[in-house]
């Protein structure tokens, strides 16, 4: 019953948002190193030929909100125009010493840490300016962490529609079922942004998520 109410509500919200706007602002949110930029890059590359930002194995590579305007997506004869908003990963702690493990110099690590803290504040502020959110999670990690719960809670409180993406399904430790169990109220799609795995299903979900509700 509760789930149906949530789904009906989301349908209504989507209908009102997407039937009246030409371009849909989609925010990519999630913890650091989940693959938000990789997914945003994959979408941009698929539809514009250009990437949106740089991704890295070192956490907090994205330290400023970055955009790509007017990304036209066409899938099975249907069209969507998106504004992609890639946000820095949200965390409750930043330690510059964590960056030293990746071979960074102390000065650079400190600068990166400082920029990362500013990026997190900026990402949270942007929650008020997105039409919908794709939450990108690392499917090899426990989805029940407090940052994920805080992000989802804020989206629920702001009535912002959500699509959950479990990234890194190419890795052995990947467990999409665990994400599905954690977020049964939302559509969950497993992908590998790095290798472009399961992107067909992702686009299908994206359109279903948007167009079916028109």
């Amino acid at each position: 019953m509760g789930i149906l109410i949530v789904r009906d509500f989301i349908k209504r919200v989507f209908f009102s948002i997407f039937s009246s706007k030409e371009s849909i602002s989609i925010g990519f949110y999630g913890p650091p190193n989940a693959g938000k930029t990789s997914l945003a890059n994959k979408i941009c590359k698929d539809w514009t030929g250009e990437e949106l930002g740089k991704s890295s194995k070192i956490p907090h590579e994205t330290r400023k909100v970055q955009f790509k305007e007017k990304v036209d997506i066409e899938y099975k004869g249907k069209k969507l125009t998106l504004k992609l908003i890639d946000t820095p990963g949200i965390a409750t702690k930043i330690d510059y010493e964590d960056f030293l493990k990746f071979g960074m110099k102390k000065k650079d690590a400190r600068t990166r840490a400082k920029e990362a803290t500013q990026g997190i504040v900026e990402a949270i502020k942007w929650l008020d300016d997105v039409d919908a959110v794709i939450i990108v999670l690392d499917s090899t990690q426990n989805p029940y962490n407090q940052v994920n719960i805080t992000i989802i809670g804020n989206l629920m409180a702001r009535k912002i529609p959500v699509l959950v993406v479990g990234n890194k399904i190419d890795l052995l430790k990947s467990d999409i079922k665990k994400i599905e169990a954690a977020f049964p109220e939302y559509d969950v799609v497993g992908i590998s942004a790095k290798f472009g795995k399961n992107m067909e299903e992702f686009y299908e979900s994206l359109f279903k998520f948007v167009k079916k509700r028109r």
Partner: protein
Amino acid sequence: MRVKKLKGLVLQFVTFSELEHLETKGRIKKLLDLILDGKIIVLQGRLDPEEEARLIEDTMVLVGRIKGFKGVELAVIEPNNNNISVASKIRYGLAKALVRGSGSLTIIGPASIVKEIRRDPKKIELMFNK
């Protein structure tokens, strides 16, 4: 005889009534003041999601300003509902946020002391930094 100095940890219990009368800003300030004092907070109830986000924002501002401060480790523990979904936990949490008698507990500690908080149906493990 050489006396070895013992190091201790302070678990500070914060009751509902201590935060009830405060606005969001005041609640967050009170919690962060305790954390900056090196205390691990056991909060009766939980903050609402917007307050949690505000706590993260204010924490990040302090990380950039206070030397040695690395942020916080945070976990909300709900009673007997470990198998329910995140959204249900949030709804449960919203309904019970900082409500007197709520079974929720929030653990917040300085990241320089608490490395990780692991939740298990019957126990909470606080992993400390060396």
